[in-house]
């Protein structure tokens, strides 16, 4: 599969701060690619470099074969961008913004009207098309943002935290619409919401402190960092027992990454044999009644926390891309 995006040693410095450090990354064409990283990891910087809004300090990159430094109008004809908090001309009507955007892409006449109607329908904005953007809600703005980004049928669609400011319903809606683009365009989406990536992305890269930590398909990542994880769901109202069990798990030599959410504890196992022998006795020792005890697949969150979220976690450099 050819690469839609190719970064070779891409570096961006702001004075003494290195926002992006020698990034080498390939994004296959047609992929829904999730760029993960904590705040300040360099995700937005990378998006700004790839879309021509900022200039690299060193290295280079191509997007659909165009050099980002010299691609200019030809490159921007083939891409689209949706900002984290899209801000458009508040005096325009929704339809007007799409017509304006279409004209910037060289669309005119019947073809322009057809594309505008299509994108309004795709994003569920047909009824709101004649309202001024100043009166749109956050969710409607985000959908309008997606509509303007789709009007040119881009080869690569850049999305910066597309769902982070939306309520659950709005988030579900926008993610569904992004997932529908699979195969039609390459989607390059930066986010720190791991559940979103897990839901719609097939490829993932993790950035931390401007450096690439890992890049792989979601399946490869889960395979590569598969660490047996146990989930223990306790019967309700056993707070003291849950505290005791959590303390016992944290002290166990085979356990790592103990987390707790309500009545459910999750624990990673360095030694699966030791864990399978020890878990039931530890529950008994803590005096808790167990509703469910099961071994699960590691989630993207487990992998992310292991790679960037745990200061003590040591990542084998050979494991890292």
């Amino acid at each position: 599969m050819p690469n839609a995006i190719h970064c070779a040693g891409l570096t961006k410095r702001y004075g003494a701060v290195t926002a992006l450090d020698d990034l080498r990354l390939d994004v296959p064409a047609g992929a829904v690619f999730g760029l993960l990283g904590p705040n300040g990891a360099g995700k937005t910087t990378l998006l700004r470099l790839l879309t021509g809004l900022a200039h690299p300090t060193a290295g280079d990159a191509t997007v659909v074969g165009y050099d980002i430094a010299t691609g200019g109008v030809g490159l921007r004809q083939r891409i689209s961008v949706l900002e984290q908090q899209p801000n458009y001309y508040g005096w325009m009507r929704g339809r007007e913004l799409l017509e304006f955007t279409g004209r910037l892409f060289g669309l005119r006449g019947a073809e322009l009207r057809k594309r505008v109607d299509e994108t309004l329908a795709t994003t569920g904005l047909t009824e709101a098309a004649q309202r001024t953007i100043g009166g749109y809600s956050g969710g409607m703005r985000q959908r309008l943002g997606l509509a303007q980004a789709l009007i040119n049928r881009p080869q690569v669609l850049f999305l910066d935290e597309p769902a982070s400011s939306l309520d659950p319903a709005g988030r579900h809606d926008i993610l569904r619409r992004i997932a529908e683009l699979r195969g039609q365009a390459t989607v390059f989406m930066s986010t720190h919401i791991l559940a979103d990536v897990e839901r719609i992305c097939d490829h993932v890269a993790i950035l931390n402190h401007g450096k690439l930590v890992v890049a792989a398909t979601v399946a490869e990542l889960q395979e590569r960092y598969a660490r047996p994880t146990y989930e223990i769901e306790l019967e309700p109202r056993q707070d003291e027992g849950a505290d005791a069990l959590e303390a016992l798990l944290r002290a166990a030599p085979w356990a790592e990454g103990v987390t707790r959410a309500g009545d459910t504890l999750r624990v990673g196992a360095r030694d699966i044999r030791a864990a399978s022998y020890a878990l039931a006795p530890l529950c008994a020792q803590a005096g808790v009644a167990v509703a469910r005890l099961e071994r699960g697949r590691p989630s993207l969150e487990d992998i992310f926390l292991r790679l960037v979220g745990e200061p003590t976690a040591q990542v084998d450099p050979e494991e890292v891309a």
Partner: protein
Amino acid sequence: METQVLAGFGALLGKELREAWRTGRLPVTLVIFFILGALSPLAAYYTPELLKNAAGSSGIQVIGLTPTLKDAIGQYVKNVGGNGFLIAILLAMGSIAREKERGTAAFTLTKPVSRLAFLAAKLVGLLVTLGLGMLCATAVAYAYTVYFFGVTPAGRFAVMALLVWLALVAFMALTFLASALTRSTVVAASLGFAAWLALALLSIWPQMAPNTPNGLFDAAQAVALSQTPTHLGQSVIVTSALIVATLIVTQVVFARQELTGSAT
């Protein structure tokens, strides 16, 4: 067909003109200039009469106050030129800075448009707004001047208006540059005002006055009164050069600038 250098210019200019109208910028500018233009001959004609009336009631005798065409022309230059600079600064201050501040510049410039086209569309939009305002002021001022002071050469009146417009464009261009340098409309306006102040102070020095846009005001007045203006060519050349140089610097600055989304 637009070249790559000016890619998107037509669509961007259309947006600028619609924005000027829909946000009220153009109508407000027209109204203000209309008032400034109308006031000029009216003030010239009625001020002596008002002074005489005021002086008469206090027992002071006022002599030699007969309104003339020169007064009307002087009032036009003072009103339209002297106040117009403020409108020029207000129009230009947010043209680029506001779009950078709100993130709409980043939105537009990730589309297949050149930065030169982005700036050119904004500049033409501003020139059209200021030009229509000046047209409005000049038309009403001319009509009242003819009514109160008799036949006045229309061509000379138009040349006077063009010279005043050129001076205002210089202040607009300086603020346009300031707007490209910053993300804040207030800072852009302050820089524009500082530039105007510096040029105004410079023009107090008689030898330097022809080398500033303010030098055009005296020349404009002389042209309208069928007199021979001193330093007309010099003032036009210097002001035009200042405008062109400022716009070139604006393009160079803006072309290299890194843009971000909306300020959060």
